[in-house]
């Protein structure tokens, strides 16, 4: 599917959802969450935040669709919202302890162990699922790119946004987006070679 098709597809879903078409709304909300999850994992790299960012994309998209006046601008709005949610998450992490003490840990020793073991197993299962998602070599190589380059590369090549859309979202010129994309491709090629 080309970038133009994806864009018009989004716009068509927005228009239909706005008129009360539940199926269109469901599809739009699923796509918004998928975009949020991919972006969060590939650009921000915090697996623990990805589903929170996805949830935020769901609620904000639902509220936004009711009042949107330019369906064609939806994608730019969505990725700006997702990017901001990721940045906020990252800021909140600064200064936080690396290990959280849960409410359950104030309970008795036996209780604490069982709750913790269940949580650990669930986390391991989630981790295995995420590790197996997408090309592991590509994800590892992307992780090594500097953030501004990774952001542009993911938006252009994986999410299929246009140069103009990426420039609006990242607040840099279109020429700058092209330069970053060019360098990012060369860096990624080098990293992939090393894997």
């Amino acid at each position, binding site marked *: 599917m080309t970038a133009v098709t994806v864009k018009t597809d989004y716009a068509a879903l927005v228009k239909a959802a706005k008129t009360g078409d*539940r199926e269109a*709304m*469901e599809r739009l*909300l*699923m796509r918004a*969450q*998928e975009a949020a*999850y*991919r972006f969060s994992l590939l650009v921000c790299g915090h697996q623990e935040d990805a*589903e929170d960012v*996805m*949830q935020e994309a*769901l*609620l904000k998209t*639902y509220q936004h669709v009711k009042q949107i006046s330019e369906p064609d601008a939806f994608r730019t709005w969505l990725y700006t919202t997702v990017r901001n949610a990721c940045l906020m998450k990252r800021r909140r992490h600064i200064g936080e302890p690396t290990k959280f003490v849960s409410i359950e840990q104030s309970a008795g020793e036996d209780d604490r162990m069982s709750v913790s073991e269940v949580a650990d197993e669930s986390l391991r299962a*989630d981790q295995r*699922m*995420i590790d*197996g*998602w*997408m*090309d592991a070599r*590509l994800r590892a190589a992307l992780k090594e790119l500097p953030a501004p380059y990774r952001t542009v*590369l993911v938006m252009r*090549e*994986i*999410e*299929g946004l246009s140069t103009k859309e990426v420039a609006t979202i990242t607040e840099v010129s279109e020429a700058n987006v*092209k330069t970053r*994309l*060019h360098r990012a*491709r*060369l860096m*990624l*090629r080098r990293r*992939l*070679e090393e894997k």
Partner: protein
Amino acid sequence: MSAASTVACRTILANISAYLDGELDTTACEEIERHCQGCPSCSDLVRELRETVGLCRQASSVPLPEAVRRRARESVRHLLDRESDANRSPSE
């Protein structure tokens, strides 16, 4: 490698993204293709970069992990059902 080919190689390197994105005119594209026919290192670079871009584009069609998709779908249905109940008048 001659000085002339080094300059040509640098030009290729600077324009390779524009070439892959179809942003160059026919003359510029033909120059790159002619150069690549006689320069294995530039030819490899073009091929590898094309593969890199292809790998990224393939990644865009990978569906989310099934468990994540299921949770996302449940969230959507829960939200829409809740909103639909809230919008229903008490007389209904």
